[in-house]
């Protein structure tokens, strides 16, 4: 049922189109520029003919590729670790005494309620005070601290929605706590786990402001991009950004289709 409201709908539609145009303009610019580089002959704007040069250059640019590799490593480890921690915290919240649970929750949420600069600085100062040298580990810790709240939230909502009854049914049928976790709870939470993981990965992959503080000699992709502002953005950046965008779009569509078919089966 949808109540007809042509005026409201056209207003909302207009806003949505404006929103989409605004959101996609930078993306489209990047994609287009990855194929047609801008030229400015004596200040006059123009476009070079279609070329895949930036893509070829990207394949040869070991610096960027190694930064990309670091970013992928960090994002993979950080998102998996965040998932495990978020699960642990969520179980704690639903089972431990309320006071303890709330205390944990406030602390876990804090970094997400703070501008990243604060989290970055806090970790920077703390690592320095305990003389913990910075490296991949500190970057991952920084990311995990920032990501866990997001994943925790997703996982907790799902866990609370699950209620006790499936767990109790499993125990009642003779399963141990571990069997219950593996066979019942985790599978039931799969959509939440997947979306939590993706979100975590995406945030970590693009995290700049915390990483800036906690990265030692490690260079993630955003940090590399940040440094490039000093001397020059090479065209292969546009190529890389385009590839990442295509990749994430494909994953999104795949997940959408997967969840839809699951939803049809499960609801």
């Amino acid at each position, binding site marked *: 049922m949808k109540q007809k*409201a042509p005026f409201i709908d056209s207003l909302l539609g207009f806003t949505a189109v404006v929103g989409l145009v605004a959101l996609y303009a*930078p993306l489209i610019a990047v994609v287009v520029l990855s194929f047609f580089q801008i030229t400015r002959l004596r200040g006059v704007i123009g476009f070079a003919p279609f070329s895949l040069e930036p893509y070829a250059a990207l394949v040869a640019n070991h610096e960027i590729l190694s930064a990309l590799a670091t970013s992928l490593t960090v994002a993979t480890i950080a998102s998996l670790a965040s998932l495990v921690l978020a699960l642990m915290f969520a179980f704690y919240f639903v089972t431990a005494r309320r006071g303890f649970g709330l205390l944990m929750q406030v602390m876990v949420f804090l970094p997400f309620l703070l501008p990243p600069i*604060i989290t970055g*600085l806090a970790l920077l*100062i703390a690592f320095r005070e305990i003389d913990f040298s910075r490296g991949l580990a500190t970057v991952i810790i920084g990311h995990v601290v920032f990501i866990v709240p997001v994943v925790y939230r997703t996982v907790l909502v799902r866990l609370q929605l699950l209620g006790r009854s499936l767990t109790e049914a499993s125990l009642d049928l003779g399963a141990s706590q571990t069997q219950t976790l593996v066979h019942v709870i985790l599978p039931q939470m799969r959509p939440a786990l997947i979306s939590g993981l993706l979100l975590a990965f995406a945030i970590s992959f693009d995290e700049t*402001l915390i990483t800036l503080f906690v990265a030692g000699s490690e260079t993630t992709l955003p940090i590399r991009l940040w440094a490039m502002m000093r001397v020059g953005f090479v065209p292969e950046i546009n190529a890389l950004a385009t590839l990442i965008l295509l990749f*994430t779009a494909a994953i999104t569509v795949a997940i959408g289709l997967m969840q839809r078919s699951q939803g049809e089966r499960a609801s």
Partner: protein
Amino acid sequence: MSAAPTRSDTSSCRRARALVALRHALNLGLPILFVLIPILSFVLVSFWTLQDGQIVRTFTLANYRSFFTEGSYLPVYLSTVWLSLQVTFVNVTLATAIALFIFRRTPRVRFFILMSFMLPLFMSYIIKVYAIRTILGQRGLLNEGLMALGLIDQPIEVLLFSRTAIFVALAVIYLPYAILPIYLALDRIPANYLAASADLGASALQGLRHIVLPLGRPGIAAGAVFTFILTFGDFVTPQMVGGTQGFTFGRIVFSQFGLALNWPLGSALAVILLATTLLAVALAGLTLRREHVR
């Protein structure tokens, strides 16, 4: 309740107790170690001072005093708060309209529309800011395009390096963060509510006002908080597109940790930043107080 415990009972009892202790240690210990202590340690630093380039570890409120009395801190702080509030207001309004737009589509296409609004999050933030600048410049793609089309004959100059530009850039970058929570809140509205509202004589607009928006309020509040926090803390975007207007509070905080090496003052300013965002969270929480959950 049962008879005297046997030996195996006590040892398994001990193991169970150890497990419980471990659980508390992990669940409370990790956040304390990696969140609480870092934040507290920099709150602590904010009460120290810098003298002759060296940190003096005695308690003082001097840094906080500086914030209120010295030079530019307070005005910049206030103008940054104001800027963030403006972006928050505009973005939440836009995001609410967009979330409503998605909400009024048929269920099977909603996910994809929502995702198309989320996809821009996956492109690097720095690349996006760069691209925005390429578009908005005096000889940027937008001006050149409009001139090529003959729509204007002079480039529009305020597009970039102005408060307007900061506004537009922050709005574009953070819009998805507001859309998501608002849409998720709308998505939880039972389908029947709108049918009931219409049945009782309400127009679509009245249904929107009395049912959809009130029930979307938690999402709207969450979207507002996210937007405020992210824009308030962002010190890169304003600098890159704001021209001489792009000096924000985050930038001041950041500058204390560079050559100025004034960590204590930087920490104090950061604590003020922190307090502001916590205040925003608390205010949002307060507006939800009256919420009646089902």
